[in-house]
């Protein structure tokens, strides 16, 4: 493998890892508050279709991303209403949201099938190319990519270094204790769900207007579920999520590069790579050390309301 394809592998890993990082960070916030959300797939699809539709209509990609973030947050409010206010089963609420997202996004995106966009503008951070050994192609990304890692740090700080984060984690660990300490459990969970929806919406937007630059039905291809797996892999920690997202991004890029180079392996087998790798990573990691899942994760429906 020559240096050019190595650079391609690196930049592809970062590009494909980015939406997954947003998605995983969103799910971490939700799960830290005690909510498993299997509806990420649906939120992401809604984000992707809304972002594409809005940016085609207005010609402004940032407007598209903003609309996707809002749509994602609004969409996830449905989940929060069911799982928090109505005390419904979280897994079923999530899957219902997934079905809703598949249906709604296909109706939103229908007029735009086959169209393309210019793609989110890429730029180089000043001074990067002066570092020896770094080629220009290696560091040329859009703003969403540049913001991804700082965002992970920001969420880490918010979760582990602020009172808000402490409350949120308390709600996820032991709602009754948090309640006794005067925290408003429902309100905190709604906040977490809003943040999760916002991030998943942005993830969808990045997929449709920066990566694929087109809209196709069901284009997320299970990324929502992979993100749930990566949350377990990252042990509910925002910074470890970066590693998880890069592993997935690397797998997708490797798959695409191998296909492009025409290796004699069936594309079907190569397409399995991200899923198999995610499963493998999950197995190795969880086998080595014990889980550190939030105490009340998934049990919210029996909870305090």
């Amino acid at each position: 493998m020559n240096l050019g394809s190595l650079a391609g592998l690196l930049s592809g890993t970062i590009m494909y890892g980015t939406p997954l990082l947003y998605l995983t960070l969103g799910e971490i916030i939700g799960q830290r508050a005690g909510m498993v959300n299997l509806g990420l797939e649906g939120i992401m699809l809604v984000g992707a279709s809304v972002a594409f539709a809005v940016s085609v209509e207005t010609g402004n990609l940032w407007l598209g991303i903003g609309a996707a973030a809002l749509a994602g947050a609004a969409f996830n409010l449905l989940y929060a209403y069911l799982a928090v206010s109505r005390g419904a089963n979280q897994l079923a609420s999530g899957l219902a949201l997934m079905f809703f997202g598949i249906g709604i996004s296909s109706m939103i995106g229908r007029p735009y099938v086959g169209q393309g966009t210019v793609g989110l503008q890429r730029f180089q951070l000043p001074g990067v190319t002066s570092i020896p050994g770094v080629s220009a192609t290696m560091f040329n990304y859009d703003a969403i990519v540049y913001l991804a890692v700082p965002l992970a740090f920001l969420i880490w700080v918010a979760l582990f270094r602020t009172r808000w984060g402490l409350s949120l984690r308390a709600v996820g660990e032991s709602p009754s204790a948090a309640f006794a300490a005067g925290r408003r459990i429902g309100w905190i969970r709604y906040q977490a769900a809003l943040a999760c929806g916002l991030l998943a919406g942005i993830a969808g937007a990045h997929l449709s207007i920066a990566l694929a630059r087109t809209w196709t039905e069901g284009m997320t291809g299970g990324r929502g579920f992979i993100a749930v797996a990566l949350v377990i892999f990252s042990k509910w920690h925002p910074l470890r999520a970066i590693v998880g997202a890069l592993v997935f991004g690397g797998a997708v890029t490797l798959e695409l590069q191998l296909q492009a180079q025409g290796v004699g392996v069936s594309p079907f087998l190569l397409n399995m790579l991200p899923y198999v790798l995610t499963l493998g990573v999950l197995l190795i990691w969880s086998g080595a050390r014990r889980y550190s899942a939030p105490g009340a994760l998934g049990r919210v429906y029996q909870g305090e309301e």
Partner: protein
Amino acid sequence: MSFSDVMTRISRSRWASEVARYALVLTIALLAYAVVLLLAGKDPLRALTDTASYTFGTWLGFSEVIVRMIPLLLTAIAVALPSRLGLINVGGEGQLYMGAWLATYAAITFTSLPPGLFIPLLVLFGFVGGGVWASVAGYFRARGLVNETITTLLMNYIAPLIVGFFVYGAWRSREMGASAFPQSIAFPDAARLPRFLGTRIHLGFVLAVVLLIAFWFVFEKTKWGLEMRAIGGNADAARRLGINLGLYIVIVMFIAGGIAGLAGMAEVSALHGRLRAGFSPGFGFTGFLISWLAGGSAGGMFAMSFVLAVVLSAGSLLQITQGVPYAATNVLMALILFIVLMRPKLLGRLS
């Protein structure tokens, strides 16, 4: 017994109130769906009359609803069975594909068998295909490595790729005209499940109903059912009963996956006569919702799979008559779920 006595009995029976609840859920969901159709610029009233006159007005339409019910019912049982042990199997879709895959292997390998042997063989291979696929997730869970929810979910995305690999590769049909639409070579006639009454209703329906009754019988009438509920998520209870919980989990997942595998086998053998890539439009996921909506009760699963089969049939019909995208069916399905999840007082115990 007078007529009014009978009526009182019916109105007091659990069965009648269950039916009333399901009817109510369907009515509310249809109203909400009408709003979605209006927003999409379609005529909801025509959509409703089209659906009703097709599914309930014609024998063909009604028989197609029953055909749709078969994979839904089987994958629902595949979810309900492990749920009694506290296991969450969201992998019905993948198990369905693997059942179809292994059954196809049998169908195109042992081509000279007579029907009397071929059908049991297909049932066996379909069952094993889905069963082994599910027991992988069961094994990881039993060893305490990974939760079965996430493994079964991810494996849903791998199984269709395995099918695709074979359908586009080794098993691809080389017949004239077949190249445009990749599919496996055709099953021999002896490997086609029999159909009944001049419709597409096939042996899979009998399998599904028999399994549903068996499911009901085991959990209502035998000590195994009680035992499973007792040890569900309670390792201590299992130890006291002298049960190897890990093995138990793997076996239950194997049986559940096998039942979902039968759904895939029946689809390809009875309906298509070939293996096709992407032949299931998410039956396994719908099966999960059915089992969940019915609270894992046998009668409820039968009723809910009928309701959702009507929904899916309406989806294909409206796509043709009104150009409503098939994915809009997902909207209706989600609306039904939302209503049940919201648990309005009217619905009472249903959820």
